[in-house]
Every structure is written in C-alpha cells, then in structure tokens.
C-alpha cells in the first residue's frame, strides 16, 4: 500500500500493463470467424489433383469424364488459368544475379515437385470435387529428379529447370577483408559443419481462401487467411488485371500464420482465377496432407563455419559458407533467398569482432519451396555462432558465460556496426547475460549436473545469445522492387457517443495486435480501454500498410496508433477549447473527460464534444469544421531495423541408453524495448521458444530419394506437444528505441531465434563426458545413439 506510485497508477495508463485481449473471449466461446468457417451464397468448392512425381513432363491431361459428373462446375488446367493470370517471378532487384523461373497458378507442361497442384476441379461440395479428381487422367513422363544438395550442385548433373546453366538461384559474398590474416595469426580456431533440416509452420488452421468475383460489379472480394491483405490486394489486382480499388481482401480470424501465410501459393492464385472464370464464390481449404506438401518449408541449410580467437579467448574473425536448398522456385513476392541472406548477416551478431567473410549459395531442387517462416535465418546464424563460441570456450577452458561476457559488445558501446554490415542502435547483452546467470541459478545447476553425472545421469546446460531483426524499413523489400509496404496507417474516429474506433493496417493473428493497439489509443487519448474498438484486416476499410510480419505490429503499428491518437486528441481539445473558451494547451483528457490540465478538474465529457460537433455544429463558432476523424501514416526512419537482443538458457537430460532428450527447464532474458503488454509478450516468447524447441528435437520434412515427402501427416511429422515442453522462465531488460516515441521493438522471433541453439549446446554439454558431438538438428534419438556409437 505504501509502494511508490508508478506511471501505471495514472488513470488510463495501459502501456506496460498486462490486460487481457478483448477479442479472446470470442475465440474462447467458439465464436471465431476463421476463413475455413465461411460459407457464402452460391459458393462452390475447389480441390486439386496433385503431381505424384517430383519432376515430370506433362504429356497429356484428359478431363473429359469429369466434366460430365453431376455437381462439377469447372475443371481447369494450367492453360485455362494462364489465359487470365500473368506469371510471377520470385526475384528481387537488389539480389544481383538472382534467378527463378516464372510461375503460374497451375503448370503448363512440367511438374517440379511431388504434391504440386496440376488440375483444379470446382464442384458443389469438396467431396464431389475430390471424387471427380479420380476421373482425371494425366500422362507424365519422368524427368531426372534433383533431391540431394550435393547432387544439385554437381556440374553436368540433372537440372531443376532444363534450359538453365545450373541449379543456382543466387550467390552472394560478404568480405570485409583480412580474414585469412586473422586466422593465420589466431591462437585458437574452432571449426564445424552444421546441418539444419527442413521444417514447416504447421499452423493448426491450414491455408484457407474464399474468392468471390462479381462480374456485374467487376469486383473481386477475397476472404483470405493471410497476414498481409494489402500485399494480396496488389497481387490479385496486377496478376488478374482488375483495378486495385475493385479488389478487396478480408483477413478475419487466422488460425496461425508465422510467416507461412504471407507467400503466394499456387492454389490460392488458382482459386481467384476459378472464381473469375465462374463468377461465383469458390472456397479452398487445404487439408493437412496438402499443407505438408504445399505450404512453404523453411531452413534446410548446411553451414561450414570457423571462428578464430586469440590466446585470451577474444573472438577475432569468422569465416562462413552457407548452402541452402529452396525447392524448385523462389517464392513470390519476398523470395526464398532472404533467409540465407539473414543467416550470413546475423552470424556473430552479439560479438565484438572485426573480420568476417561469408559466402551464400542458394540452390534449386525438386521439392516444395522454402521461404520465410518465423525468425527468418535467426536460428541458423544463432546455432552456428553459439556452438562455435561453446567449442571455443571448451578449447580455452572457459565457462560458457565467461567467454560470452568477455566477447559481447558492451552495453555502453552503442551505436555499433557489425562486421556483417548491420547497424545496431542499442543492445543489452551484458545486462541480459548477468540476468540469465542469476535466473538460472547457474552455479546450482552446474553443481547438480556434476553430482548426477557421478550416478550416470547426463544433464546438459546450454546458453545462446541472439540478436533479432524487427521493424524492417523500406530498405528490406521496397528497395528490391517488391510492393510490400514498410509503413502503416491508422484512421481514428471519435464516435458520436464519445468512443473511439481505430482502423489500422497491422493485422491480428492471435498475438494481440488489437489488444496492444487499443491499449496505446486508450493510454494516449485518456480513455478507458473498453471504449476503444480496433478493426483490422480489411483492405476496403483499413488504410494501406505492411500489416503484421517481421515483428512490426508493436514497433511500427503501435507507433502509427500513438501518433494518430495524439493528432485526434489535439483536434478534440481544439474543439473543447472553443466550447470552453480556453486555450487547448490548458486542457487534457482523463477517463473520457476533458479536464483542466493543471488542476485536473473536470470540464466536460468528450462525448459532449462529439455530440455538439456531430449534431449541433450550428452552436460552434463560424468556420469551425470539427475533424473528429484523423488519418495518419507512419514509416520507420532512422535505423533500417530495430534490432533487439536477448539470451536463452536451458537445462535438459539425455538418456544415453535410448537417445531420448528430456527438456527440464528453459530460460529467456529478452529486450524488446518498451513492453506494451507483458503478459502478451511473455506468451509470445514462450510460443516462439516452443517452435524453436520443435525444430531442435522433432520437426523435419523428410524426403525419399525420389523426392517424395514421406512424413506428411501429424502422426509422422512430430510437433511439440504439452507433455514434452518445459516450463519457461522469462526475464526482461528494456532498452527502448529512440527512433520512435513509443520505443517498442518487436518480439515475435526472439523465442525461436535461440531455442534450438540452446538445445544444441546443452545436448553437447551433456555428452561431453563421452567426447562426442552433435552438429545437426533436429537432434533425434537416432542421432544421439549414432554419436554415442550405440546404434
């Protein structure tokens, strides 16, 4: 009771407060409105015949029998859709020399991965459409299949795209010089080759789309389970030649996305075309097997890396080669090389060293595309860096905390430019390291580990520091020619009853966008949060913006809301000042009441201002035009990205008889700048960590030698379930960015960024007594037993 008052004790102070999400009650009552729930009048259902071959020529397609089936309305092949849809190519201008073949909704004459959609059937029910697929005859002629990474790079080997010179999509090199020199003069060099399996997002709601073309109005409405409605408005408009203002994309509740739902998928483009051809709404919801074979996959890297250190354990240089295979095409419109590009640029990010060289090679193969999925490139860069740091510590006889404390960029030394070219405004590695050490009870864990080891119980402790990329500026995609917005917009209105409606371009996928935006608006305006209604995800209502990806919801969307609210507040106070015969600067708003700024004495409710302005403008001074709706856009300036940082730790136990790994506890200290809602941030971190833990131990898209995905179901592809996941302890350090008034940075990638690196280090720590190491993820029991030579 005697605790000092904090900023949270002010009325309407919502920034920094753990308030529940207003929209969660609806979802808890089973009243979500997911695209897969949607049914429109006269709606038809699409299903796709998929290629059984990873690479084959389409000799002929016979659809004659299907067209006669009752209930079937349309059968469409690649040729039919190519007449109305222009092709797309997944390259960006600033990735010099990048190539990728043009793509169409359905292929014309060749399939390039097993599971690629070949023919579409639209029928009165999904079941009829699926039945009809069985009547389609496609003659294929097998072509050589490129599956393996090494085979794909072999000179004179089979080509994913016949007619190209080789299977290279993109090559890039970073070199700031003197790397060879640094290695020649190093006292210690650690070196390893790592591999990272392919995995995929496995959103619980698969991809879903309802396209509704109205030929009478010349209007296309697409209900699309996507993160980025504005991007798709632009794409549907351009590729189907419909004026942009006549394309509306609505993204209501989305059952998970994680980056997976912002890429262009062939089926989604096809469904839009099918609706145009039929002039009726067409629905497509991927089933789980379709999701596994057609959603983007992610990662799939092989990295060779070495690190040079001096006698004292100072990191001097890193030398990295990243090879990544991305499937048959680069995705559109963001491309599949962004991940590799971020891998080589995030290497060594927490550390102070000067010399860096990296090569990136991005290779095509006959598999489904890989592309951006949560924490793009972060887990690879983090695992490689942090494993090398641990290996160096072991070589030097240093504790993992000690070598990091010695090498991280000091908290007081910012701004800094990394040897890979990133500019860091202000990070807090030292503070995070110290905090993690305390939080883990590190010394206690080490003592317990030593004790248990004597009894044949092998526990491991792993830590991993990370830097996260958030709030990308136009330099990210815009500069490469992609029409992907880095700015966001908000339209804020005071309603006649004195409430606020906020239309904003950042979107909600469950992470709490609507909640934090309403917190910011309520806080800045001086209103109870329940009087703020936030509307997202409809290109016809909300202003154009980048929406929610790459952790830009709070940092960019939040700042947009903050600036818009301040503008609305100025307008409200100007009218209040006219009514009250006061200077606007002498007034403020608290709890929906205009008050004297100095005394806080109530003068009039803002509802009364709204009433007068809307219904009795005749009583206002002549010439007054009340502007109770403001529209405001904000684009990040200053630093090209708001980098955040943190460190994770974990404790686990390896059963050396079975190879099974039991996660005991996980820890994270994280700095996302200004925290708007701690509860949402914490569970966002936990969710991210669990995705990283899944990658570390379970998740891998496995292919046969012929390019067949062999584990495309939730019984075969293992995902983290509650029983295997540990409790997760969270600590925060707050270093707000000075680039915005709000000071918030992103937090969505942080958990995923370092979780698998932690586990990799911890497993190797546990196996240290056996003098064996593991350098690939997922770390399956088989890999553990193989390393231990017990299998």
């Amino acid at each position, binding site marked *: 009771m005697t605790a000092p008052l904090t900023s949270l004790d002010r009325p309407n102070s919502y920034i920094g407060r753990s308030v529940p999400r207003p929209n969660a009650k609806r*979802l808890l*009552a089973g009243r979500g409105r997911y695209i897969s729930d949607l049914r429109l009048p006269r709606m038809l259902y699409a299903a796709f015949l998929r290629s059984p071959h990873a690479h084959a020529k389409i000799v002929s397609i016979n659809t004659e029998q299907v067209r006669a089936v009752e209930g079937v309305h349309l059968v469409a092949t690649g040729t039919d859709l190519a007449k109305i849809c222009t092709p797309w190519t997944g390259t960006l201008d600033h990735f010099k020399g990048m190539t990728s073949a043009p793509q169409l909704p359905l292929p014309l004459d060749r399939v390039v991965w097993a599971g690629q959609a070949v023919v579409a059937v639209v029928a009165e029910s999904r079941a009829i459409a699926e039945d009809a697929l069985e009547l389609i005859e496609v003659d294929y002629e097998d072509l050589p299949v490129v599956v393996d990474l090494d085979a794909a790079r072999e000179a004179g080997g089979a080509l994913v795209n016949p007619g190209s010179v080789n299977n290279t999509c993109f090559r890039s090199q970073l070199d700031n010089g003197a790397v060879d020199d640094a290695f020649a003069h190093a006292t210690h060099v650690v070196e390893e080759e790592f591999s990272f399996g392919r995995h995929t997002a496995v959103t619980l709601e698969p991809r879903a789309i309802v396209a509704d073309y109205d030929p009478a109005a010349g209007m296309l409405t697409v209900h699309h389970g996507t993160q980025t409605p504005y991007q798709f408005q632009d794409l549907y408009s351009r590729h189907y030649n419909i004026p942009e203002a006549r394309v509306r994309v609505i993204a209501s509740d989305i059952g998970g996305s994680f980056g997976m739902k912002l890429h262009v998928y062939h089926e989604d483009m096809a469904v839009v075309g099918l609706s145009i051809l039929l002039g009726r709404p067409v629905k497509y919801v991927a089933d789980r097997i379709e999701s596994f074979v057609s959603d983007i996959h992610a990662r799939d890297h092989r990295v060779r890396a070495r690190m040079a250190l001096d006698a004292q354990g100072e990191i001097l240089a890193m030398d990295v080669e990243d090879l990544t295979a991305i499937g048959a095409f680069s995705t559109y419109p963001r491309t599949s090389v962004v991940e590799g590009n971020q891998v080589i640029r995030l290497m060594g990010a927490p550390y102070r060293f000067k010399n860096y060289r990296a090569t990136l090679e991005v290779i095509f193969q006959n598999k489904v595309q890989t592309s951006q999925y949560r924490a793009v490139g972060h887990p690879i860069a983090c695992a490689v860096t942090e494993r090398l740091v641990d290996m160096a510590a072991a070589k030097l006889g240093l504790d993992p905390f000690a070598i990091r404390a010695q090498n991280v960029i000091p908290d007081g030394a910012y701004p800094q430019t990394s040897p890979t070219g990133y500019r860091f405004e202000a990070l807090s590695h030292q503070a995070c390291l110290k905090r993690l050490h305390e939080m883990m009870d590190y010394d206690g864990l080490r003592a317990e580990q030593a004790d248990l080891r004597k009894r044949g119980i092998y526990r491991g402790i792993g830590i991993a520091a990370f830097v996260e990329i958030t709030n990308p500026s136009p330099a990210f995609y815009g500069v490469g020619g992609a029409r992907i917005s880095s700015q966001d917009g908000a339209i804020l209105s005071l309603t006649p009853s004195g409430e606020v409606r906020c239309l904003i371009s950042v979107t909600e996928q469950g992470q709490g966008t609507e909640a934090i935006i309403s917190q910011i608006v309520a806080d800045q305006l001086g209103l109870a949060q329940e009087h703020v209604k936030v509307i997202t995800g409809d290109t016809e209502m909300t202003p154009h913006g980048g929406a929610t990806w790459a952790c830009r919801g709070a940092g960019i969307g939040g700042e947009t809301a903050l600036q818009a609210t301040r503008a609305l507040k100025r307008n409200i106070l100007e009218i209040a000042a006219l009514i009250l015969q006061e200077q606007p600067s002498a007034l403020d708003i608290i709890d929906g009441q205009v008050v004297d700024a100095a005394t806080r004495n109530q003068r009039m409710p803002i509802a009364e201002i709204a009433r007068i302005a809307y219904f009795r403008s005749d009583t206002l001074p002549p010439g007054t035009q009340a502007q109770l709706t403001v529209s405001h856009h904000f684009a990040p300036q200053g630093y090209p990205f708001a980098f955040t940082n943190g460190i994770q730790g974990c404790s686990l136990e390896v059963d050396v008889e079975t190879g099974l790994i039991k996660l005991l506890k996980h820890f994270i200290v994280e700095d996302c700048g200004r925290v708007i809602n701690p509860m949402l941030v914490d*569970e966002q971190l936990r969710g991210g960590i669990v995705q990283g833990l899944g990658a570390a131990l379970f998740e891998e898209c496995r292919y046969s030698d012929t390019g067949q995905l062999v584990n495309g*179901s939730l019984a075969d592809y293992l995902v983290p*379930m*509650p029983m295997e996941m540990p409790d997760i302890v969270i600590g925060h350090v707050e270093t707000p960015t000075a680039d915005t008034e709000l000071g918030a940075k992103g937090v969505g990638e942080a958990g995923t960024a370092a979780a698998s690196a932690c586990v990799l280090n911890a497993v190797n720590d546990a196996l240290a007594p056996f003098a064996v190491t593991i350098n690939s993820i997922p770390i399956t029991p088989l890999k553990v037993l193989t390393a231990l030579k017990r299998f």
Partner: protein
Amino acid sequence: MSGFDDSLLNEADETVRVRFVVNGRKVACEVAPRETLVDCLRDKLELTGTHAGCEMGACGACLVQLDGRAVHSCLIFAVQADGATIDTIEGLSELGAIADLQAEFHRRNALQCGFCTPGMLVNAHELLSQTAQPSREEIRDALSGNYCRCTGYEAIVDAIDAVASERMKAGGAGGGVT
C-alpha cells in the same frame, strides 16, 4: 480408369437420416455415410466452433463431448453418432459449464490464434471432471493430444491448474455441469 462406374458417385451421394441431441436440442439431419461428425457439425449444423486441424485424431482441435466423454469428431462418422448426445464448445459455453475455465484462459491469455482453444477447453473440462486436482504433470499429460502452435502451453497449464484449485476451494470436485 475409363469406364468409371457411375453408381460409385451416386452411392457416395446417398444420405442417411440421423438424429442427435446437440447442445441440448434434438436435431435431425441427412448425412452421407462417409461424412465425419466434425463435417456434419460444422457444415450441416453450422457449429463452426469445432475445428478440423489434422483430421486424423492427432491434434485435438475437433474434440467434442459425446455422451459426456471427449471424443475426436474427426474420427467418427456422423452415422455412428446417431442417437448420441453431443455437446460442442457452443453448447458448453451457453450452458456455463466451462465459464470458469474460459474466464481463466482469458485472464491469463492462454490462447493466441484460438484455433486449438475449443478442443483444449473440452479436454480440460473432461480432465477436471475426472481428476479434481491434477498435478501440472498430469495436466500436461492430459493435454498431450492437443496441439497448439502459438502458445508455449504454459499459460494453458496455469489456467487449468488455477481453475482446479478454485473448484476445490469452492468445495465441488467436478465443478462443471456435464
């Protein structure tokens, strides 16, 4: 494949009349024999709170109560449920049977996208009706057939744990109405 037997499609189209008590009301509908209960609930009865995630009983999104027990509605055909009493998330919500669980999930933000949430709640409801005060380990074990991609599961475990304690304090072991 030429010479496709047309009767196959007709057979698939043939419907059967089934009757259930769904969320306390008698309903009858025409279903194809191959139609699963989840499709019947979602498409015929427009009870879209029950979700289809994997359609093979691995993810738990489709859990409903059938004659008082949680079952995967994707793993049974609608015709098999003929004569059964079915409670979906909509019915359990309206009944108030899981109001305390819903409130605690809300208070702790034990959900993000919400797609897994109805299944989680049905399972949590079942768990607490069987075990009044499960340990955290038992809660995690009970939920081990419910996949959530968004959260770290921890807030969900916390919420169920808290409701179990509250129900114990209130003196009723079961708490909910079944």
